[in-house]
């Protein structure tokens, strides 16, 4: 035994497909999830490359050509109440809408997971205390909390992102804690402890790999909620300020147009809807792909 180990022989081994590779494999066979993913990518790319793709300047209005319908020459999707091209504004609007929708979930994922995994792994009284603090935030319906925080902090993109992040941290933390507590009691974690590993090592090698997956899936399901809430905040005037293009804000400013140009007025909402449902369907598909019993 000693001799072989000393020789440092590293036998060529056939590695099986890893966990995430199998998830991706299954996901690729789910038509609904793939379509949803394609839509998300398309919308994201359009938003990122809006300066290159948009036919017109989203800020440039025209008093003469206000509220033109869809298909009007020069304005493929019509124009808004200040004569700005809807198509361009929708493309640029995607930037802020996606930013305000995705950022809070990302930040909350990092903070909430850390909080929850720590509480879950440490257990005991500290866990109980930490979870009770989380319970206090759960005592608020999310919309109410978002609005309360936004209302108090004041309007603005950063403030909205901060409020939404605070709304989502407890939700993710709770899921993180639940999953970690479940994994902590597994035999292989105990075996790792028995081999003398430090807590950080055990968490890194054994806990994280098994815990981040479910938390991540949950987080993706929050993106659609986040987008709706973020746009909702802008709709109320709490998020983005005019003249910045953002789908929720556009819905607000176009409200008066519902009698004259209902289709144009409804367009920003269609974008929110499509994005939101795509994220939801993708998240569902991801969950199914991960759930298959290995």
């Amino acid at each position, binding site marked *: 035994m000693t001799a072989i180990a000393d020789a440092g022989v590293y036998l060529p081994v056939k590695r099986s497909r890893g966990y995430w590779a199998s998830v991706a494999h299954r996901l690729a066979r789910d038509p609904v999830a793939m379509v949803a993913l394609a839509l998300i990518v398309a919308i994201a790319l359009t938003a990122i490359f809006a300066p290159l793709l948009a036919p017109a300047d989203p800020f440039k209005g025209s008093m003469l050509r206000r509220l033109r319908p869809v298909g009007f020459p020069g304005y493929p999707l019509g124009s808004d109440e200040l004569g700005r091209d809807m198509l361009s504004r929708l493309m640029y609007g995607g930037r802020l809408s996606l930013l305000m929708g995705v950022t809070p979930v990302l930040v909350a994922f990092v903070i909430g997971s850390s909080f929850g995994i720590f509480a879950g792994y440490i257990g005991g009284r500290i866990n109980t205390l930490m979870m009770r603090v989380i319970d206090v935030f759960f*005592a608020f*319906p999310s919309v*109410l909390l978002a*609005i309360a925080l936004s209302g108090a902090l004041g309007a603005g993109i950063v403030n909205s992102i901060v409020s939404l992040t605070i709304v989502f941290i407890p939700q993710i933390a709770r899921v993180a804690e639940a999953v970690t507590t479940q994994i902590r009691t597994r035999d292989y974690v105990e075996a790792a402890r028995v081999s003398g590993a430090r807590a950080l090592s055990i968490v890194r090698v054994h806990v994280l790999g098994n815990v981040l997956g479910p938390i991540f899936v949950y987080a993706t399901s929050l993106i659609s909620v986040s987008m*709706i809430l973020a746009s909702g905040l802008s709709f109320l005037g709490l998020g983005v300020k005019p003249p910045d293009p953002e789908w929720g804000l556009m*819905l607000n400013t176009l409200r008066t147009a519902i009698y004259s140009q209902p289709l144009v007025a409804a367009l920003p*909402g269609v974008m929110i809807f499509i994005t*939101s*449902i795509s994220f939801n369907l993708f998240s569902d598909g991801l969950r199914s792909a991960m759930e298959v019993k290995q």
Partner: protein
Amino acid sequence: MLLYAVKRILYVTPVAIGVSIICFLLVHIAPGDPLTAVLPIDATAAQQAEMRAAYGFDRPLPVQYGLWLWKVLHGDLGNSIATGRPVLSEVSRAVTNSLILAAVATLIGFTFGTFFGFVAGYHRDSALDKIASAISVLGVSVPHYWLGMVLVIIFSAQLGWLPPTGAGPDGSGNWRPDFEHLRYLILPAVTMSVIPMGIIARTVRALVAEILTQEFVQALRAKGLSEWTVFKHVVTNAAPTALSVMGLQLGYLLGGSILIETVFAWPGTGFLLNSAIFQRDLPLLQGTILVLAMFFVLLNLIVDVLQTALDPRIQRA
């Protein structure tokens, strides 16, 4: 049972205190001097001094909290900067309207949601399931304020069947249960019901599908009992969880009604919140949120206790 209820109340108390702390802090995280936040701009020096003494703005934070909490427990939520009237009276008037809207919306959502959920759960993985599931995903993904706008466009602007805004024909502040006012309730309630419908449909579908796979269902069928009997069994098993989800949705609707109420100018707490935000009327904002959050906490408590009463399997320590 009673012991459980008492335990839950004890458990909830620190949470309620935590909620009140957050509400208290709202005024303090707002940019600027909290004193200016609670007073009209044109307040006199004397009024400022009086307010400062009453709320203790120059005292340490915990003391301020104590003073504020003492007032709250005596029903004094401060006065609205915009109207000058006590916050509590403004809120209580608005809460009734919101409750009506939320209750009706929850009922609609629950009815359709359970229907779709049952259909999907019974015919799992069939085309029917996919359609019903699709409807519930739609329900959860749609931005409800936009849906409200769309419904107003269709039923109000284009067809003229229903009024676009308000709770009554004269833009009245209160909703009364008569035929005139019913028309005003339909659009907001339907719009509001979509999200709970989606959530309840998904929950019920999962519940029903899971119950149907359980062995006792197969045993019932093997005994030759009719499908109707099996159905009744499924219902009784699904009921506790479904009802608790419904209760929670009611709470969410009550707390989260601001967007719909803004779209429809419905004179409820959400509408009140909206004007509070825009007029920077922080006492009103704070008071409304406190009342709504407490409602939610109370509702959670009731749902919790009821679920345990209905479902004997849940034995909480």
